[in-house]
């Protein structure tokens, strides 16, 4: 089980409590689709993803970004049990959605860049380390049920 210090818990909680999900969620997913274009293969039902402008203004991308970000709430509320918390979602991504688990890291990297952009100098090395630890645990949990 992953250990979290009081400091780490409060850093993670602060990041999320000041987060505008409707802004950050879409931005993270847009970045993922633009920076790592092969990820677009999972979203063929989303319509126009032909260029960065289309992706940035696509309402389905935005909605899905918000949904994914809210998915992180579960980890936030269950820091001591992230693996079990994401077991079902992991099965879903493996067996139904057929998502390559490498992509979880790509999206988490893009989310890190968006949060860095939002927080600016408040995204200190210590905050970065804690946030990356949090995302790494989530990414690992999402990959756990793959076989």
């Amino acid at each position, binding site marked *: 089980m992953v250990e979290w210090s009081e400091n780490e818990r409060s850093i993670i909680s602060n990041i999320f409590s000041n987060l505008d999900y409707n802004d950050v969620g879409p931005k993270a997913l847009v970045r993922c689709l633009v920076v790592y274009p092969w990820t677009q293969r999972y979203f063929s039902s989303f319509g126009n993803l032909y260029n960065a402008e289309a992706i940035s203004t696509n309402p389905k991308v935005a909605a899905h970004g918000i949904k994914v970000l809210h998915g992180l709430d579960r980890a936030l509320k269950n820091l001591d049990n992230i693996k079990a918390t994401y077991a079902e979602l992991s099965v879903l991504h493996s067996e139904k959605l057929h998502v390559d688990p490498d992509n979880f890291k790509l999206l988490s990297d893009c989310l890190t860049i968006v949060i860095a*952009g939002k927080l600016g100098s408040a995204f200190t090395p210590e905050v970065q380390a804690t946030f990356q630890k949090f995302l790494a645990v989530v990414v690992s949990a999402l990959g756990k049920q793959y076989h």
Partner: protein
Amino acid sequence: MVKWTELERSTVKAIWEKIDIDEIGSQIWARVLIVYPWTERYFGSFGDLFTITAILKNDKVAAHGRMVLKALDKAVNNMDNMKRTYADLSRLHFQKLEVDPDSFRLLADCITITIACKFKSALSPQSQAIWQKFISAVVDAMSSQYR
């Protein structure tokens, strides 16, 4: 050889022109050492790296960051010839400094995050994609003399 479009060349140069080597350079190593603490093994001669505060105040860490960014300037000005530009540095890191080439990727990620903190929304998804292509090419060039 990596191919660069006119847009990619001008985007990389535009980002680079806005980078204050002193300001950004002093942060990049602090992030690497704090977020990926095992990298401290390479800096035994830097003195106190025992706490986050010590790392953030360490002058040698800051100076080393500036040195790395000055070396990145060579890549910006030799985008069509990065492998040859970095051949000597690559050999140095391989044969003399014995640096794990994975570390180049960790540093590249921290440079990108430091830039994201500074530029905020000015580092658009498209700019991020181009910057990451550039920095990946640098990482490849730095790894090129490893056997």
